[in-house]
Structures are given as structure tokens and as C-alpha cells.
């Protein structure tokens, strides 16, 4: 990883973030609906009081002024105050972010640990029953509406079988002092296997629901690239060397076959992060996605602005991580 490439990466972020900000601002500016109106709801206020509230929130300025005020503050790390929480937006987001990231990561892990072995198996047993089942299964995976499937899972495992909890991140008897704010890690760091188990049970259904489409996609990618790799000369050569099948499959083939899987996983993780608001709603998961959707409806501009920027940064970072992974898997590519 050269310094030049690192600098280039960081420079890439600037137009992306600027573009994203402009789009959110434009959207917000062109969208009908007034935060103060929504905030007041069914209550009685005088026009003067209403105007005072508007000034309080900085909504009396023209849109372009608001934008530059936002930009100026954002550069200094100040993303404004949430209209509703009446706290710095950054605080509100940071409280919710770990839950979203944890859910996305677990979904990602579930997707990876099921998709990769399945994809490999499907590829080496090409056209077998297993291959066909995996293919049809993966097509099913991308064809299920998440909120519907999530509720079905919930009905089955939480209501009928009562094996898993309905919602939340962790049970109420499992109070632990946060360290990383990732509960699965914190519970272990605090030496609480019971709480870890509890947190795991909570995250299972939402993570499966969230990860399912990704599992399907990654499985297909892995299968295709594995088939492609197995046709390569270096696999023939490895066989000619008289190596054990396991070594050929996992050391020679898989390492190469994972290269496209990693790139696709990076892109899809972006959509995991951005697409989890529905799963969060169904499973009462206290993440950022739900908050952002609520905020759009409530016209909580500062929060939406900042959250979208967060998503964008996360997305760019994820791709960056994927690139690094990509280079370790594929030494031909130099970052």
C-alpha cells in the first residue's frame, strides 16, 4: 500500500462526501413538509411561537445558507443538533451505530460461512442434487422480501417454538458495562458466557434475515468463480503434483476463487449497512437504520444529513478494506 494510493483514496472520499451532502440537502430542500409543523403535531401554538421554534432550529435561513453552515460546521466535526433528541447529532448516531455495525457484521459472517462452503461444494459437485438445491436455494434467498421472511422466522422461532427472543439486542438480566459497544465482544471481554449466549440468541434471527440475500449472492459468486478456477492450469498442475485433494481445493483453488467473492461481499456489505432499516424495524433492533428512516419522515434534517455521510464513509472504508483483502488474496494486484 503506497502512500500515493492512500492519499488517492482519501481524496476520493472528498467528492463522494460532498456529492452525497449536496444530494441530501437538495432532497430535503425540495421535499414538502416542515419539521416544526411535524414537531408541533396536534397542538396549539401561536404563529410567533412557531416562528421562534423555527429560528431555534436554524430553519429560517435560505437553503444554500443552511448548506454552507452545515458544511462549515461539519468540517469541524460538528454535525448539528437533532431536532428531536435535542442533542448533538453525532452523539445520537454514535449510540446507534454499534448495533447496526454489529448486526451487519454478523449477517456478513453468517453469509460468508454458509455461502463459501456451499458455493465450493456446489462447484465441485457440479450438477449434483446438492448443486441444484444450492442454486435454487440461493435464488429463493434473493427472492424473499426481508420483512415478510423476518416475520415468518419470528413467528416460527420466537412465538411457536419460543426458542429465540422476539426483539432487542440482549436480555434485561444480562447487563454488562460496555467496552467496545459490540455486545458479542463485550460479553466475552467481561467474562459473561451467559450474556454472550443471550446476545447471540437475540442477533440470530435479524442477522439471518439480513444476511440471506447476501448469502445467496455470495454462494453463486463463489460457485461460479470456483468453477472457473478449477478449470485453470494451476489446478491441473497441482493435481499433476500429486497433492491431496483437500490441499488442492482449499489452498490452491479457494484462495483464488475468493477474490471475486471478496469484492462482491464488499459491495453487498454496503447494501447491508444501508438496507437494514427494515430488519431493524421488524426485530426491534436498536440500530441507526430505523432512526434514519424515522428521521426522514420527521424531517429531522441534521440527523439524516450526518447519518447519510456516515453511511458513505463506511461504504468507502469497507471498499478500502476489501481492496486490502483483495491484495492479500491476489498478490498480482498492488495497492
Amino acid at each position, binding site marked *: 500500500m503506497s502512500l500515493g494510493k492512500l492519499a488517492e483514496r482519501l481524496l476520493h472520499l472528498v467528492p*463522494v462526501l460532498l456529492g*452525497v451532502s449536496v444530494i*441530501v440537502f437538495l432532497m430535503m430542500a425540495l421535499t414538502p413538509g416542515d419539521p416544526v409543523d411535524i414537531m408541533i403535531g396536534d397542538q396549539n401554538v401561536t404563529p410567533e411561537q412557531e416562528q421562534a421554534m423555527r429560528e431555534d432550529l436554524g430553519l429560517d435561513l435560505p437553503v444554500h445558507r443552511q448548506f454552507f453552515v452545515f458544511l462549515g460546521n461539519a468540517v469541524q466535526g460538528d454535525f448539528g443538533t437533532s431536532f428531536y433528541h435535542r442533542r448533538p447529532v453525532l452523539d445520537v448516531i454514535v449510540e446507534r451505530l454499534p448495533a447496526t455495525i454489529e448486526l451487519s457484521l454478523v449477517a456478513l459472517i453468517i453469509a460468508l460461512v454458509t455461502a463459501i462452503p456451499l458455493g465450493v461444494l456446489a462447484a465441485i459437485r457440479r450438477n449434483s442434487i446438492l448443486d441444484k438445491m444450492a442454486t435454487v436455494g440461493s435464488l429463493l434467498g434473493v*427472492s*424473499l422480501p426481508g420483512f415478510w421472511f423476518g416475520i415468518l422466522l419470528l413467528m416460527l422461532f420466537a412465538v411457536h417454538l419460543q426458542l429465540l427472543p422476539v426483539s432487542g439486542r440482549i436480555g434485561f438480566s444480562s447487563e454488562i458495562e460496555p467496552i467496545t459497544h459490540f455486545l458479542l465482544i463485550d460479553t466475552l471481554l467481561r467474562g459473561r458466557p451467559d450474556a454472550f449466549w443471550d446476545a447471540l440468541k437475540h442477533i440470530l434471527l435479524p442477522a439471518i434475515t439480513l444476511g440471506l440475500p447476501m448469502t445467496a449472492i455470495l454462494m453463486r459468486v463463489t460457485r461460479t468463480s470456483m468453477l472457473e478456477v478449477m478449470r485453470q492450469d494451476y489446478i*491441473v498442475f497441482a493435481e499433476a503434483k500429486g497433492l491431496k485433494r483437500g490441499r488442492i481445493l482449499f489452498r490452491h483453488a479457494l484462495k483464488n476463487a475468493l477474490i471475486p467473492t471478496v469484492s462482491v461481499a464488499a459491495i453487498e456489505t454496503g447494501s447491508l449497512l444501508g438496507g437494514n*432499516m427494515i430488519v431493524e424495524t421488524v426485530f426491534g433492533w436498536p440500530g441507526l437504520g430505523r432512526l434514519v*428512516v424515522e428521521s426522514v419522515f420527521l424531517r429531522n434534517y441534521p440527523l439524516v444529513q450526518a447519518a447519510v455521510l456516515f453511511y458513505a464513509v463506511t461504504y468507502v472504508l469497507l471498499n478500502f478494506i476489501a481492496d486490502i483483502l483483495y491484495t492479500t488474496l491476489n498478490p498480482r494486484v498492488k495497492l
Partner: protein
Amino acid sequence: MTSAAIHSPPVAKASGAGQTIFQRNLRQFAANRLAMASVGVVLLFVLLAIFAPFIAPHDPNETDLFRRLQPPAWQAGGEWAYLLGCDALGRDILSRIIYGSRISIFIGAAVIFVATTVGIAAGLAAGYFRGWVDVAISRLVDILLSFPYLIFAIGLMAMMGPGLVNIILALAYKEWVIPCRVVRGETLATRELEYVEAARALGASSAHIMVKEILPNILSPVIVVSTIRIAHVIILEASLSFLGLGVQPPTASWGSMVADGRAFILGAWWVSTFPGLAILLLVLAINVASQGLRDAFDPRFQE
């Protein structure tokens, strides 16, 4: 070359087959029974959509509060006249699924059509001309990709207001980046191939090279991606419905039926399950069929 020699039969391709390539491909495709069945399913749905008024047993929007949440025919309280039961307003679910196929297929097809057209144009331009065109398009793609999809769609819907056309636009606004990315990558690779250079050497214009030489050769991955995305779009429309921004009532779309019916899932599973199954079936069929078509018709997939 070596691996080809070992793993594929060393057969000279010049076999003077007495049939056109199209006939041969078609026969190959017809031999794929699963794919043929899927084509049948897709056709069935399309026919269902076209002839909905003649097929549907009831008016899909006719409410009858006395049939509210009536179960499917085979369950206690069901009637054979309302095979799949009724929804919260006592409308016939079967009829709504039949009519809903119009909207869902239309939204899926329209969004993908718009997105693919725009994506191909942008991707071709970026990949072929490179330079500032590529930088501009790629930057826009980056920006849109890093923008969470649903928030983007919600924002646009909030901005433009409800309506079928707006749903299509809100979904297509971002959807095009996916074919664009695919096309750009393929174009970058294809433009370096010798047959493109050959066309240039013959004096062909950029437009000719992009449309006639490059496009036909990169179309197949785009089509594959696009058919998969149809599934996404149908589900995304459902997600918008879930968030209250879907198609306008009383029009039925499968997505909105699933979304609206989820509230009743604990007691009246049929309200959202049947349209959910319809989505599943159609999307599955499209995917299987497209895969079969690709295997049969793309010269690159032939041994």
C-alpha cells in the same frame, strides 16, 4: 491452450452442421427442462397480467367488510368462490394477485428497462471514452452507491410524492449504476480486444464500435445482472410499501399486498403469504429461465 487440450475434447469447430446456430441453440435450450418450465411460468404470469380482467374471478378492488380476512377455501370459514381468501377489506386475494401481477411485472420491467438503458449508455461512454467522461460518471456512481438505497428511494418518494411513475423513477434513479458498473468494466476489457481494434483499423466510428462491436458482446452479463435485479426491484417496491410509500390504493401490487398483509400475519397468514409466494415464484422462474437462456445462447458458454 494446454488446459483446453486436456479438458475439452479436441474437436474441430468446423463441423458443417446443416442447421443455423439459432436452431441449434434453441434445441439446446429446449432440452433444459427446468428452464423450459420456468419460461412456462413466466409466460403464465405475463398472460395472467394481460388477461387479468378475464381471468380474475372478482373485481380486485371490490370491498366487502363482511368478508374481512376470510380464510382460504380449504380452511374453516372459507368459500370456494374466494379460493385464496380475502384481505382486510374483504377483497378477493386471488383476484388481487392476478391484477397485482400487472403492477409488479410492470414496475420490475420498467425500472430495469430504464435503468439498463441508462446504465448501458453511461457505462459504454465511461468505459470507451475513459478520461474525464469516465471520471465524471464513475464519481457519480460512487456517490450513488455510497448512498443507502432505501434512504435514497424514501427521500425521492418524499420529494416527488406518491404515484406509479414516481416509484419507477425513484427506483431507477439509483438502479442504473449497477448495469453501468458492469458495462463499464466489460467495456474497458472489450475495447482492448483485437476485433475492436480491427473495427477501428477499418475506419469504424466510435458509435459503431460501441453499439455494434462492443455492446453485443457485453450484453449477456448485463442481461443476467438485470434479470436478477428485477427480483430486487419487486422486493424494493414491497419495501417502499412497507414504509408506507408504495403504490396507491386500491391498486394491488404484490409488494404492497405482502407489506400491508404483514400486520395480519399472526392470525391471517394468507393475506401476505400468497402474494409473497407469487413474488417468489415469478422471480425464481425469471432467474432460472435467464440462466438457461444464457447457457444456451451465449457462444462463450458453449464448450
